[in-house]
């Protein structure tokens, strides 16, 4: 069974005559442990798609099955639970809590989970170590570099052992070196069996994916498997 299955998925913003369609009927599915990149020009609806798939926003029409269950069947609180237990998010703007330590940031999803408070520190520390920031665990996030900030965000995304990680332009605010490191970390998550949905407009990040869905004007323009996968920084697909 596919982890994600969408049929005729539509998302229309606004209403009362000023309706702006962002997604105009998408059909596709994503298997467990798949690494999918969503690409396309700005305004094509790729971020909207990620938000809907990540249970952050509800679609307007069509069906969306996550893990076999339709999104319509979830209440807002249940959506929050699923986001907490099964999903991880990495955003372009990092979205870390200001004036808060790295460890506290990584802990955040645990706060809203059923995990006992006494375990929070150890679990969060492990995640911080996975992104190689254990020496900065007590630092305030405002004092970190962009690349480090995004590593904290990745640690936060993986702290609850999610089935799927949604990454929205995770390298968009980073130089290519840091961006490469971030992509390595995301790829590492994929290697461990985590499903990855990556929204990007940069080809060099998309090349980590096994499959690239291209959107244009709210519709799928192409959906292709990447046959020749490349690893490392210097063999970008052009």
């Amino acid at each position, binding site marked *: 069974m596919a982890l994600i299955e969408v049929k005729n998925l539509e998302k229309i913003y606004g209403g009362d005559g000023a309706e702006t369609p962002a997604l105009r009927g998408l059909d596709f599915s994503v298997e467990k442990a798949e690494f999918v990149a969503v690409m396309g020009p700005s305004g094509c609806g790729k971020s909207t798609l990620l*938000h809907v798939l*990540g249970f*952050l*926003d509800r679609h307007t029409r069509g069906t969306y099955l996550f893990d076999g269950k339709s999104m319509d069947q979830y209440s*807002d*609180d249940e959506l*929050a*639970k699923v*986001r*907490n*237990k099964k999903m991880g*998010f990495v*955003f372009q703007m990092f*979205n*870390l*809590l*200001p*004036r*808060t330590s790295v460890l506290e940031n990584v802990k*955040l*999803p645990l*706060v*809203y*989970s059923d995990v006992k*408070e006494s375990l929070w520190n150890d679990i969060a520390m492990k995640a911080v170590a996975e992104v190689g920031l254990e020496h900065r665990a007590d630092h305030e996030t405002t004092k970190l570099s962009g690349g480090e900030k995004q590593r904290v965000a990745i640690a*936060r995304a993986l702290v*609850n052992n999610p089935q799927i990680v949604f990454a929205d332009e995770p390298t968009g605010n980073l130089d290519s070196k840091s961006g490469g490191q971030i992509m390595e970390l995301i790829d590492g998550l994929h290697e461990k069996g985590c499903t990855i949905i990556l929204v990007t407009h940069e080809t060099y990040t998309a090349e980590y994916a096994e499959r690239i869905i291209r959107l244009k004007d709210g519709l799928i323009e192409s959906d292709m498997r990447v046959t020749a996968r490349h690893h490392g920084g210097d063999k970008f697909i052009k």
Partner: protein
Amino acid sequence: MTTKYIIKTAFAGLRNNKSRAALTILGIVIGVTSIMLIMSLGKGAQDLILNQVQSIGAKTIVVHPGRQPKSLMDSAQMMNADSLRQRDLDELRKTTNAPHIAKVEPLNVGGATAIYENETYSVTILGGGEYLQDIYDIRLQEGRFVNLDDIQSHADVAVIGSKVKEELFGANDAVGQKIRMKDRNYRVIGILQKKGQSFISFDEAAIMPYTTAQTYIFGIKYFHHLIVEADSEENIDATIKDIEITLRNSHDITDPTKDDFWIVTQQTAIDQVKTITNVLTSFLIAVAAISLIVGGVGIMNIMLVSVTERTREIGLRKAVGATNSDIMSQFLMEAVFLTGLGGIIGIILGASLSLLAALILSKVVGLDWIFTFPISAMLLGIGVSAGVGFVFGLYPARQAAKKSPIEALRYE
């Protein structure tokens, strides 16, 4: 989300915005401080007056002429009520009428300027008789008290209070000297011991035979009060009954609602004082409570700003699994924490200021003021301030909880 985490986050939120938090809770601090101050001072004032009322004595009954005052207008009329006269005094002194009355003495009260040589002093004239000394436990420092002979002969004599003696005579002998009041000379026959604060300020009084006071000072034929002492506390109620029956007979009154006298005991005076001071205190608290509401609006305002500022944080928290109620409790807790802190500071400030006021009132002003800080005030302070935080935090917290994660994450 655990309560511990909510509290920790609320605390961190305050710590990150120290000066803003301080300014925000200022209104609450001022409100709670003033309520604490009013409650403490109100209680202190009540105790002070009650102490003075206690000095009336538990066995003492005061009969006033006229109708019992129910309003300010009544009180003004009471001054002229002339229903208590010599005949009433005579009737009450008959043991057949009131067997439990130990002593009855009339009392006329007024003011006059006393002059001795070049010194003048404004004194309280107390026209009374020999029993006053027992009823009010008056002690003499020198000389003698007013006696029956003085009363019968309208003697031009006066017993003066310690303050009067000091002001008019200084260190010189006063007994035997003549002081002038209302164009007439009175021989000083005794000096009272210093008594301090009490229901009647004996230190500033000149006690005279009531007959003399009636004739030469006030020019009246009635009494301002009749002071009755029962033989025991147990017989107070019986004595009140006896007085009522005797006076109604004496005044030909059959309908008790038409009584032209009214009776005050220590207990009724205590009740009255309590009623008056409680009403006053509640009124002042109500006024101070307005500042709490203003403070609450300030909290709401700042919380709304904070919610807008932290839209991104709210979005993120929601994205990683916070439910609406998680966000709601976080912001509500912050508001309650903020006002609760204001409440605690207000209580400490209020207690310190009332202690300072008590010190000034007792040491500088010289009142027998005792510092009291009711526990009820403290609980009220904490409860009310936390309540204000809850009520005024509710709206901003709801606004925060209502934010959709995506709107919140997009917010720049």
